[in-house]
């Protein structure tokens, strides 16, 4: 495991860059643990100070230090993305593998459900969800909601792979040897679809962070939990761009872009590693 990571770092530039970028982001998020100010306190520092040695990323019009506020924001945003990705992966894997393996009526029932979720317009639903929940809206609820909306494409992808695996001789042999459906799905089919799932997980984290930022910027989330989007939302509320407080917008955007690029590079390079066939191609 560690030698694999070391080799990847040494020989795969995409992986190395991705790891460095993500390490920067995660390290930054970890700084939130030693923040001198709680995230929601305002006017703890002088407002509207441009970036300087004392305040490396400046301060907001609400008297918050952008640097420390950003550490909380990126931490929440990352956690959000990971939660959505993990939950939706569970759904996508279960439904995709079961549908592809079972076929017939089960497949048809699951896939009509799946298609329903594919054609649902995401954004209006999420906005509507905000208006229904209003004050009860929270970070966790939104993550759950987005996980429920974000599994459908991948479930279809996984199902298509599972259908082809179902026809392979090793599946026939596995059935013949008396393995149950659960054992076959977990033992034989899951390892086969994992590389693609890993890659789509990274994409899903990107997607959910992007959507969360969009919703937050428009104010359709819990605006009292600092995330990247909420940070930009408050900057907009204080007309930061008009007032020339550019650092309030620039640094959150920069950080989220770094996160996107890091996750993407990691997805691409890890995918190459997990697939044993392309790994062999690299050895020879």
């Amino acid at each position, binding site marked *: 495991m560690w030698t694999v990571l070391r080799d990847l770092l040494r020989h795969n530039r995409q992986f190395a860059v991705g790891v460095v970028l993500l390490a920067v982001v995660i390290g930054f998020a970890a700084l939130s643990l030693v923040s001198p100010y709680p995230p929601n306190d305002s006017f703890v520092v002088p407002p509207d100070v441009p970036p300087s040695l004392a305040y490396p990323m400046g301060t907001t019009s609400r008297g918050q230090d952008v640097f420390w506020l950003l550490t909380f924001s990126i931490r929440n945003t990352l956690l959000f993305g990971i939660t959505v990705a993990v939950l939706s992966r569970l759904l996508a894997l279960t439904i995709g593998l079961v549908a592809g393996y079972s076929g017939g009526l089960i497949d048809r029932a699951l896939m009509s459900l799946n298609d329903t979720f594919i054609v649902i317009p995401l954004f209006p639903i999420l906005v509507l969800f905000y208006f229904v929940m209003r004050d009860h809206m929270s970070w966790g609820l939104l993550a759950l909601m987005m996980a429920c909306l974000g599994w459908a494409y991948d479930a279809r992808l996984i199902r298509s792979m599972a259908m082809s695996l179902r026809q392979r*001789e090793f599946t*026939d*042999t596995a059935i013949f*040897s008396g393995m149950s459906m659960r054992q076959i799905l977990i*033992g034989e089919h899951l390892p*086969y679809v994992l590389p693609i799932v890993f890659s789509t997980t990274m994409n899903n984290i990107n997607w959910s962070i992007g959507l969360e930022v969009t919703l937050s910027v428009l104010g359709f989330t819990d605006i009292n939990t600092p995330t990247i989007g909420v940070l930009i939302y408050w900057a907009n509320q204080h007309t930061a761009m008009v007032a020339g407080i550019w650092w309030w917008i620039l640094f959150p955007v920069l950080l989220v872009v770094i996160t996107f690029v890091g996750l993407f590079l990691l997805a691409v390079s890890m995918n190459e590693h997990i697939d044993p*066939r392309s790994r062999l191609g690299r050895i020879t």
Partner: protein
Amino acid sequence: MSTALAPAPAQAQPHAVLTVSGLRAYYRTSLFGINREVRAVDDISLEVAANEIYGIAGESSSGKSTLIRTIAAATKPPLEVISGSVQFSFGDRDVNILRARPRELDAMRWRNLSYIMQGSMNVLNPVRRVQQTFVDFAFRHLGQTMPEFLRLVRDHLARLHLEPDVLEAFPHQLSGGMRQRVTIALATICRPEFIIADEPTTALDVVVQKGVLAMIHAVQRELGSSIIFVTHDMAVHANLTDRLGIMYAGRLVEEGRTFDIFGAPRHPYTAHLIASLPRLGDTAPKPALPGTPPNLAEPPAGCRFHPRCPLAHARCRREVPEMEWVAPGHRVACFAATPERAA
């Protein structure tokens, strides 16, 4: 540890491990109101004794694979078993596999009855190491601890001249012949009484094939199992099998000891199959049998071989010949081969 295997049971009184009687299995499809029935296995009866390699030969689409898939009760729609029984007797148990409950089937499969699938190059999951495949397929059936099991697997691989290293490999890192041997090891690891092999050597070149066949033979002698061995390659049958059944268009047309069949084929189709084998010093061109195998959805009336048969006469077009004994242990379904009965 060197596993001293029990000596193969003596061939004193060969009892039938497998008894197939009157088996019919049809592919039934219904699409847009059109029903088709493909009679891939039609009224087949045969017996396989203990410690015997039974070969099934015939050209492509003669129903060989369907027959053994039915024997293994590994049928899935649209293949349906219409009638007949497939009786296995393992030790003290007699099981009609077509009526067995799923629990019984699971207990029996791999332990008593294993199956080397067609295209067995693909039996190994490409993303699982060979060792994991062994654990997945066979571990449950043996009831041993993991170290014991792995030692057993290594010993067994050694028997097939495979290094223990292959356990750590992914299938794509092995050559075709090694993969084939791994598959055979996988099918024989539980020392089953009965092995069904569906063209396990088809994709291999003749040199590797020879080695693999010798290995199958050695393992079979050592374990004392019975094998049903399916291939269209008559040369393989001549070298490996004890008894041979010739299939044509879903029916068994001749059955007997391999030696007898190659020495004196009774059925004109068998005669053609054997005449097609090249011999040293023989430079005469081999004539192809005219015509094509019949469409099994609408098989010809009477004997299914009559449109291509050089000996066909009026009766062959009307009546279906039954399997008749022509010599001890030698049956054939042909009016021309059994003239005294046909008259």
